[in-house]
């Protein structure tokens, strides 16, 4: 599964994307955020306030309780500031 990071989430983690093997028991976006947060200081920093983190599965917005089974690409980013 490919993970992509944008804006300050990308800066804090220190890379724009990576491939991961999803561990057993991780079924929702919120589970994935919790698991990533334990991977190191940079992840803990990026996800220190999970409420502000937005996520997309295969390029469509999803909520934290969304199931990630079958996802090819999951992206994490701060609230958007376009327009």
């Amino acid at each position, binding site marked *: 599964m490919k993970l*992509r990071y*944008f*804006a*300050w989430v990308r800066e804090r983690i220190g890379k724009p994307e990576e491939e991961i093997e999803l561990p057993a028991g991780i079924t929702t976006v919120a589970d994935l955020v919790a698991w990533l947060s334990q991977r190191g200081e940079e992840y803990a920093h990026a996800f220190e306030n999970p409420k502000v983190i937005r996520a*997309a599965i295969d*390029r*469509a*917005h999803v909520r934290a309780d969304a199931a990630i089974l079958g996802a090819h690409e999951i*992206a994490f*980013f*701060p*609230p*958007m*500031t*376009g*327009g």
Partner: protein
Amino acid sequence: MAATVRLQREPFDAASEVDKLRRGRGDIGAVVTFTGICRSDETGAPLLAMTLEHYPGMAEAEIARHVEAAERRWPLLGVAVIHRYGRIVPGEDIVLVVTAAAHRQDAFAAAEFLMDYLKTRAPFWKQIEFAGDGRTDAKMWVDAKQSDDALADRWTASSGRRAAE
């Protein structure tokens, strides 16, 4: 209906986009054009430039979804949305929304709807550069505004208002 959604690094020409939408059409009675421009200050500090990061692929898809939602909601005769990314200096254009309809109410409402959603749902992030004084970080990510969320929320059915088009 003719809809254009485009992301580009280069500046755009609003007049030519309007011309493309209305050329040879006798049914269009109203065209609304919105241009978002990079201001020269943010919270009082002079701005050097703004860099827009985006999520390629998703940004186009998300804008297209909202264009389709606007088409379902109002009888539109043409839509163009162009959003720039990369480094933009004050005075330069950032975003263009053009809506065409037979009557002005539909064109105005659809343009406002599209802008409200672009602000809160299109995957773009603004980072601003200040004229650094050497002491503080001269680059800063712009925080999302709750007022923008409120503006986008007013178009959803649960808020009650304006939902009955």
